[in-house]
């Protein structure tokens, strides 16, 4: 065509390459593409429609920008707020110029990777892509203005130098420009692609967009009802499915129940191995028919779980911890060094449920040519794509994942194993029509992954001066990354391997790493050990299912931080020292100290040893506790103020204060909301949550058997964001806030009652046992 012509000459931009692919009559665009290492360019990108741009950043002639990310949103807001701010910042534009964010769809986004560490890790991709883009546009401007690159400056999307100036749009107008940036990794891997190289980045002290409290643009369409949620997607000829899950986590199908066609005309029973479902064009009919069939279905008996009552004992005495090699955390000195006084305690964290308010729901369309279109709410769309392709033994090029807003699930579907996706695919393949699988509440509670249970043994030796001399901890539990799709397991189809010690995928190891960063550097003798095992019941289950676990919020770190922080509070009491001051006295990190000092002021902390003085005959005991966590370069501390009624075992949280030095605050408004909600969810876990199970199955199947926090239980809550001035890393929001509630509350319980709370939840029956 006459108006498009190739022009010779690529420009090197700090290792990226800019090419002018043609001049077009009107418009103009700069696309930022991937430069995949030679040899693996095609197979994995096949489902990217080459006709549509899948660039990271696309700059248009009107100076608006579209950005694309494979990450998703389930309430964090980051990809619609912080990511736009970060990209705008590096480009030198106002954040309002980033008008469109395309997220999570495997055929429309470039990078893949799971939705975790959104600001800490994943944002680096967008930031570098934007920095390369800015440098490329500076190159264009230098050529256009006839001045050196060093003579140019950018402000609010306008590039100026040598007395001339032009907007981004003007510089690219009339051209199609492609900037190819270097990446490494694999698109459908757990971590996705990583942008490499070192383009010059803007100095944080010159930031204008990062740090603004911008609103989350997806909230208005959500509250006005315009957003299409994953559960709202419909397709022509779609059938509604309800899955009838086995009676236990190890039962196989003996005989499917009868479906009466006279009573449920249009409904059909479908079986793929041990995956049994009822489908119907009418959703309510599917619900009713599935109930009737389920009651009439025979499953084999299975009883190999230890029960939730005996779980702690099982972990302590029945698991062979010698099979999976141990790991080491902080280690220095000799913890056998004799001490003057000793604290030792055995701690327990139960299984927790992610428990999204909406149970898992997906819609799959497997076409006659074997291609799959899956509409879902995943956390790692490209990794889910790989899991579906593996299950069906087809190429990844056959599978497209579309991602929609859905209920917050706090980490569960890292690998797309939230639940209903693979079941929908198998049912659609069997029936040749689109199938929507909506899990019921009991499916979600009974068959989703959980957050791992853990036990810890901690011994602290105090010197004659009352300071910690030795600290020794052993953390033991099942691993938290089981990415095997449940439908594939039930149908007996291929999956990646369950967590094992020698798993080729390092994240799927059965080894227990030490995830809680040690912050008490002044303790001379320290030894931390992690001991892993397999998923509980997995080896015994004919389905190879058992209690599958998957990451939740601060996976592993929460389970290790709780015992550590409670033990430190207990050691402080033993030493006759104030719990907050005791922490300050044992740290060498000025940021730990600063956060704790600030917490002391913000919470009105009264400096004194525990326990609190009791008024004679008091029916309600009050106390305060403190906890501290270092995660992703973010320093978080929490103070909890509790009231305990020993007669009833009731624990009430009266006040919580959080202080955070999270690094660079990208969006203070969203960070505050995230921190508030994260902290309240932490209170929920500490007060109420524990997965109950019998010898075969989960018995926490609804909100009465798995209660969570209500509005009435919300305490007075104060969040203080106090970033350290020299920070150069972006701060995450709600994760640490979530983890810190439980150990602070247990510290407050110790202060109020003089008795340790070495487990959660602080339910009346456990509290009474602790005080007995």
């Amino acid at each position, binding site marked *: 065509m006459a108006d498009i012509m190739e022009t010779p000459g690529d420009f090197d931009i700090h290792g990226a390459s800019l090419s002018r692919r043609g001049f077009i009559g009107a418009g103009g665009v700069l696309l930022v593409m991937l430069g995949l290492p030679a040899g693996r360019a095609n197979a994995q990108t096949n489902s990217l429609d080459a006709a549509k741009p899948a660039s990271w950043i696309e700059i248009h002639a009107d100076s608006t920008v579209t950005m694309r990310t494979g990450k998703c949103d389930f309430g964090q807001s980051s990809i619609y707020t912080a990511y736009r701010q970060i990209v705008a910042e590096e480009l030198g534009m106002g954040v309002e110029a980033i008008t469109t964010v395309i997220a999570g769809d495997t055929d429309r986004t470039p990078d893949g990777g799971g939705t975790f560490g959104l600001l800490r890790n994943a944002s680096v991709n967008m930031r570098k892509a934007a920095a390369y883009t800015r440098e490329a546009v500076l190159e264009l401007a230098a050529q256009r203005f006839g001045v050196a690159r060093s003579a140019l400056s950018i402000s609010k999307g306008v590039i100026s130098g040598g007395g001339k100036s032009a907007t981004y749009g003007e510089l690219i107008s009339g051209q199609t420009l492609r900037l190819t940036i270097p990446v490494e990794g694999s698109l459908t891997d757990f971590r996705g692609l990583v942008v490499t190289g070192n383009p010059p980045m803007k100095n944080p002290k010159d930031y204008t967009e990062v740090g603004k409290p911008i609103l989350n643009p997806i909230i208005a369409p959500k*509250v006005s009802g315009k957003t299409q949620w994953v559960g709202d997607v419909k397709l022509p000829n779609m059938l509604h499915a309800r899955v009838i899950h086995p009676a236990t986590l190890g039962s196989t199908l003996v005989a499917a129940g009868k479906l009466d066609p006279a009573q449920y005309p249009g409904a059909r029973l479908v079986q793929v191995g041990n995956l049994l479902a009822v489908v119907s064009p009418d959703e309510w009919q599917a619900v009713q028919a599935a109930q009737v069939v389920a009651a009439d279905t025979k499953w084999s008996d299975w009883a190999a779980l230890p029960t939730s009552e005996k779980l702690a004992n099982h972990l302590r005495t029945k698991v062979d911890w010698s099979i999976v090699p141990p790991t080491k955390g902080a280690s220095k000195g000799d913890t056998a060094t004799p001490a003057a006084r000793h604290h030792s305690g055995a701690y327990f964290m139960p299984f927790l449920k992610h428990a999204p*308010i909406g149970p898992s729901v997906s819609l799959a369309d497997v076409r006659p040519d074997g291609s799959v279109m899956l509409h879902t709410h995943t956390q790692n769309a490209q990794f889910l794509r790989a899991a579906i392709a593996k299950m069906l033994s087809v190429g990844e090029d056959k599978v497209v994942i579309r991602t929609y807003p859905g209920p*917050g699930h706090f980490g569960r579907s890292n690998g797309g194993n939230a639940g209903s996706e693979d079941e929908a695919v198998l049912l659609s393949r069997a029936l040749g029509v689109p199938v929507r699988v909506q899990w019921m509440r009991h499916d979600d509670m009974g068959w989703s992954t959980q957050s791992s249970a853990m036990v810890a043994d901690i011994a602290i030796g105090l010197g004659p001066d009352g300071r910690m001399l030795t600290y020794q901890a052993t953390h033991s539990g099942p691993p938290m990354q089981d990415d095997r799709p449940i439908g594939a397991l039930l149908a007996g189809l291929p999956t990646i391997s369950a967590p094992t010690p020698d798993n080729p995928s390092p994240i799927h190891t059965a080894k227990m790493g030490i995830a809680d960063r040690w912050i008490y550097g002044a303790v001379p003798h320290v030894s931390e050990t992690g001991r892993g095992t397999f998923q509980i019941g997995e080896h015994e289950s004919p389905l190879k299912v058992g209690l599958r676990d998957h990451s939740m919020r601060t996976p592993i770190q929460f389970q290790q931080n709780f015992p550590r922080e409670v033990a430190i509070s207990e050691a402080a009491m033993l030493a006759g020292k104030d719990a907050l001051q005791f922490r300050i006295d044992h740290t060498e990190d000025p940021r730990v100290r600063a956060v704790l000092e600030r917490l002391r002021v913000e919470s009105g902390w009264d400096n004194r040893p525990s326990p609190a003085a009791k008024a004679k005959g008091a029916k309600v005991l009050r106390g305060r506790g403190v906890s501290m966590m270092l995660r992703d370069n973010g320093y978080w501390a929490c103070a909890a103020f509790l009231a305990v009624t020993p007669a009833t075992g009731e624990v009430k949280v009266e006040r919580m204060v959080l202080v955070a030095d999270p690094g660079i605050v990208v969006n203070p408004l969203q960070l505050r909301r*995230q921190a508030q909600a994260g902290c309240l969810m932490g209170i929920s876990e500490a007060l109420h949550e524990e997965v109950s199970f019998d010898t075969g199955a989960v018995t926490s199947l609804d909100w009465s058997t798995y209660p*969570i926090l209500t509005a009435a239980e*919300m305490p007075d809550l104060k969040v203080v964001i106090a970033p350290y001035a020299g920070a150069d890393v972006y701060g995450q929001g709600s994760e640490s806030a979530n983890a810190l509630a439980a150990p602070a509350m247990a510290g407050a319980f110790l202060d109020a009652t003089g008795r340790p709370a070495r487990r959660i939840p602080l339910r009346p029956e456990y509290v009474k046992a602790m005080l007995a």
Partner: protein
Amino acid sequence: MPKLTVNGQSREVKASPDTPLLYVLRGELEVMTPKFGCGLAQCGACSVLVDGEEMRACITPIGSLDGKEVTTVDGLPARWSKQKGLAHNPDRLHPVQQAWVDEQVPQCGICQFGMMIKVTELLEHNPKPSDADIKAALTTSGPSPHLCRCASYAAILDGAHRAAKLMAGEA
């Protein structure tokens, strides 16, 4: 065949009388804002107003709603316009929705359709609620507490207070 008013429109329903309202709204009438959360009247994700009173659509049979007026979050702007005698404006939100944007209430947002319905019900009866009134409305006034797994309760309280101000013309 039950006939009811949904968001101001008269609708005839084909589903059998025992079908819960939630399945009729989402399946037959294409009203998608009430969400499925539990199907057990335990969470409030499916809440709607029936003649101004908050009810759980997941357990309310359509046969019991003949002649009733159902309002979902989609219908809140028109409800407000009617109550205030305002001219139709497609861009106007109900003050509760506007407050939810202003205060950036939702995290994931799945529970917020029920939360906004409950707070609308509260404010129509009690235009200036205290913290305790709001907490009670969300916890003890219905068949179960309105649950938010993201635990956005602090934001919901801020949102409810702001909505009260917007409704009173004070903000």
